[in-house]
């Protein structure tokens, strides 16, 4: 499996994402935001967490306009697998690859702690390592993770099985407790929690390991 992790000025989870993917068996290249072309033969793109461009204007807004993001959007629209975590999720909504937007947390505070997530759709490349309805513990670290979309979009996401994860206890005011959403073809996933920060025993919690293992397995066998 050939993976790329995009790096913006202010990204700070790119290395964690790279390690989780590589440790799961992927061949990973990090790609700078000013590049306009992706490496050839890619199976997967990771858009990491962090504070791209200092969160200026809106979280992810400026990164979404960077040269590489045009290529990321094209890749996603052609059916490629794209995963955005935290700031990466914000970037993917800003590009329009995923619906909705992330608002300031309802409590207005930056939240950094491990939270329970409920696996709402275990039939995607990202979630096959879990059982439907399984509760996993994954860290969150964000100020703007309050997911919102218009009522029609929310209903559609639910009906089409495009809510990948919900929060066990809503930490940020997110609509319908949504923690992660999928594209219509279930190949683009954006989520606020960080599975790459719960990947190995040294993290004190390895609930995120199955996420990357199943993803890489799926790509290798495809």
């Amino acid at each position, binding site marked *: 499996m050939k993976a790329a992790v995009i790096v913006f000025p202010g990204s700070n989870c790119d290395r964690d994402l790279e390690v989780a993917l590589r440790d799961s068996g992927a061949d990973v290249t990090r790609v700078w935001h000013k590049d306009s072309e992706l490496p050839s033969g890619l199976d997967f793109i990771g858009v990491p967490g962090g504070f791209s461009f200092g969160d200026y*204007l*809106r979280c992810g*807004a*400026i990164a979404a*306009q960077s040269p590489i993001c045009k290529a990321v959007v094209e890749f996603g629209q052609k059916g490629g697998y794209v995963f955005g975590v935290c700031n990466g999720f914000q970037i993917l*909504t*800003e590009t329009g690859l995923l*619906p*909705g*937007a992330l*608002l*300031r*947390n*309802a*409590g*207005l505070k930056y939240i950094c702690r491990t939270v329970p997530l409920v696996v709402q759709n275990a039939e995607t490349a990202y979630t096959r390592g879990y059982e439907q309805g399984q509760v996993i513990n994954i860290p969150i670290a964000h100020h703007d993770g*309050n997911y*919102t*979309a218009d009522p029609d979009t929310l209903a559609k996401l639910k009906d089409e099985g495009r809510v990948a994860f919900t929060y066990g206890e809503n930490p940020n*005011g997110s609509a319908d407790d949504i923690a992660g959403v999928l594209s219509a073809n279930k190949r683009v996933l954006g989520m606020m929690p960080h599975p790459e920060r719960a990947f190995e025993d040294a993290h004190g919690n390895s609930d995120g390991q199955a996420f990357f293992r199943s993803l890489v397995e799926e790509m290798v066998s495809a």
Partner: protein
Amino acid sequence: MKARVHVMLKNGVLDPQGAAVRRALGTLGFEGVEKVRQGKIIELDLADGTTEDTVKDMCEKLLANTVIESYSIELV
């Protein structure tokens, strides 16, 4: 020439910052503040002859996220 772009959360989108400002005003003793919405103003210094349509394009592409925000343009 200058353009001033006002960006606000759309009606119906919860604005937790505006709500916190409203509560703080109440704490200070200002009565009758029923609602506060917080937005932003972006001032642009532009080459003469830049059209409002161009500024509108800037809003659509970058300055506002039209999923959650509305904008208005003032040429000054």
